[in-house]
């Protein structure tokens, strides 16, 4: 369905020294350097799978999606998506894919979404009956029936993202590329969008490649995760393996009656304190959980505690600080 081998992209950039003198210098002479946005990248995604593409800012996630959609031409490597090479921009390929960018909009700002949908109907040659049916279905799923005739500029960010998603799905794409679809949304809007994507995938069995800064998106939607760091694929496997990268540790949160000073008992477990030192979050190995918890309960004024799986955000932060962890995990996977 989606395969690529040795796919890479280099960009030419130049550095400018600050100030007027630097500007003058770079006006006459620029020293260009080649930057690898994506280093030789291999991936295989079977039909109907949702894969989460994870990585910090500037890791190369969006560049990868732009190469997959044919927006940017790769510097090298091969890519095949549903039988097409995206760089050739075959019209038949473009009819089968959809792209949603959380930071950009394809809707006409000064028009109600319905007017933009009608333009898309022409682009994708959707028959009138199918179009009406599709708009009705999607509007109901997203609960936006009352928003379709409101000017896009008057919609909230969450509402706009809903109609944006609708616009991309009108033509029933086989492959959907979602680039940060929940960015900037409040928690409820994020949850609604996630719920919609999950339901839509369940009903349509399309292939989805999702990039996100919010780990909750990836956790809620994807069973498989690809982690990119500095343009390079560093992990490709199931989300549970990624969560267990730091070993079988548990995340334990202790709430204290009053402010507590740093305690030697807590130091080995990577303590994360809140501002007034009334709450601490610890990473405790599973086999020592009972023993350490009892000690803390005895020594410190604990009023409440709870245990949970280590949040994937913490895993990601740790592996970014220590990328060597990924190599061992990748070998095991």
């Amino acid at each position, binding site marked *: 369905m989606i395969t690529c081998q040795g796919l890479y992209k280099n960009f030419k950039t130049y550095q400018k020294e600050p100030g007027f003198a630097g500007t003058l210098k770079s006006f006459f002479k620029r020293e260009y350097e080649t930057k690898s946005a994506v280093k030789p990248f291999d991936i295989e995604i079977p039909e109907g799978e949702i894969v989460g593409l994870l990585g910090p800012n500037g890791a190369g996630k969006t560049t990868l999606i*732009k190469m997959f*959609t044919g927006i*940017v031409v790769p510097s090298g490597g091969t890519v095949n998506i549903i039988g097409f090479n995206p760089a050739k921009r075959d019209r*038949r390929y*473009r009819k089968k894919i959809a*792209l949603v960018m*959380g930071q950009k909009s394809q809707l006409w700002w000064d028009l109600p979404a319905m007017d933009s949908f009608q*333009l898309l109907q*022409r*682009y994708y040659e959707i028959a009138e009956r199918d179009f009406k049916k599709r708009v009705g279905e999607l509007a109901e799923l997203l609960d936006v029936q009352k928003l379709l005739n409101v000017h896009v500029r008057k919609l909230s960010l969450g509402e706009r993202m809903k109609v944006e998603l609708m616009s991309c799905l009108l033509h029933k794409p086989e492959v959907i590329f979602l680039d940060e679809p929940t960015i900037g949304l409040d928690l409820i809007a994020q949850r609604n969008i996630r719920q919609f994507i999950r339901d839509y995938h369940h009903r349509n069995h399309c292939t989805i490649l999702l990039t996100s800064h919010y780990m909750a998106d990836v956790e809620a939607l994807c069973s498989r995760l690809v982690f990119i760091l500095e343009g390079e694929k560093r992990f490709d496997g199931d989300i549970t393996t990624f969560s267990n990268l730091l070993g079988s540790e548990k995340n334990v949160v202790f709430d204290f009656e009053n402010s507590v000073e740093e305690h030697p008992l807590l130091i080995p477990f990577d303590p994360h304190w809140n501002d007034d030192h009334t709450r601490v979050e610890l990473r405790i190995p599973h086999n020592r959980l009972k023993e350490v918890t009892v000690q803390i309960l005895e020594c410190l004024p604990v009023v409440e505690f709870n245990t949970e799986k280590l949040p994937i955000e913490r895993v990601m932060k740790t592996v970014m600080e220590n990328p060597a962890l990924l190599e061992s995990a990748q070998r095991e996977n």
Partner: protein
Amino acid sequence: MLSRTKYYLLLYREFIKTCFVEAMSFRLHFVLLIIMDLVFYASVFASVDIIYQHVETIGTWNREQLMFFVSFILSVNHLQMSLLANNYWELSLLIRQGGLDFLLVKPASSLFSTFLRRISAGSTLLFLVPWSCMIYFGNKLGFTWHAWVILPFLVLLAFMLTGLIETIISCAMFWMLEGVGINFLRMQLQQVARWPDFIYAGFIRKILTFFIPVLLIYNAPSRFLFDFHDWLVMVGMLSAVAIGWVVLFFLWKLCLNSYESASS
């Protein structure tokens, strides 16, 4: 081929509809633009009329000939302003802010979507003004029926040539990124083209006829209509259009290959 043509005609009809809906939602702005266009047409004709109150001829052309020439320019300019100009102004923003991404994933020619998407709705309504003037002065010049038949085709041919030249120039925005300089260059070339070619001499005239053939846009059709024996200029114009299409298709491929989009 026929179904493709139908597809693009229907898509273009949708572009027109969408632009009208958008423009008419700003009612005062819509009306103001129409008034400004009317003032522009009036000022152009008034300028020529004032000149002819002081001289009998300019070069070999009398008042009616120059008035027809100006009407022809305004007819082509009307099409350019209504159908293309907004797209040129928007192109550099599309490139710098990555808005072009969405046009590139649509299942239609990216060249078509990029340069024909934005229509100046108010301006399109004023097509009667330059065409009425053109018919009025053509009548005064005693045009034969042959001239009347080919006149619409010559307007379309001139529109095509000006569109090709300006689109080719606008492609430079893919490398320059900032579009203001390119747009001013386009407008300067429009100014150069709006004069009878005999006012230019020697080397400059050759450059503006053969290299950047802006002098052919309005002069070739007008001269041909005034005197059918002057057919060689039309051969030059048709050649320029053919070469323009080849250059544009080649250049557009280069543009898309060099497009880096914008960071998200």
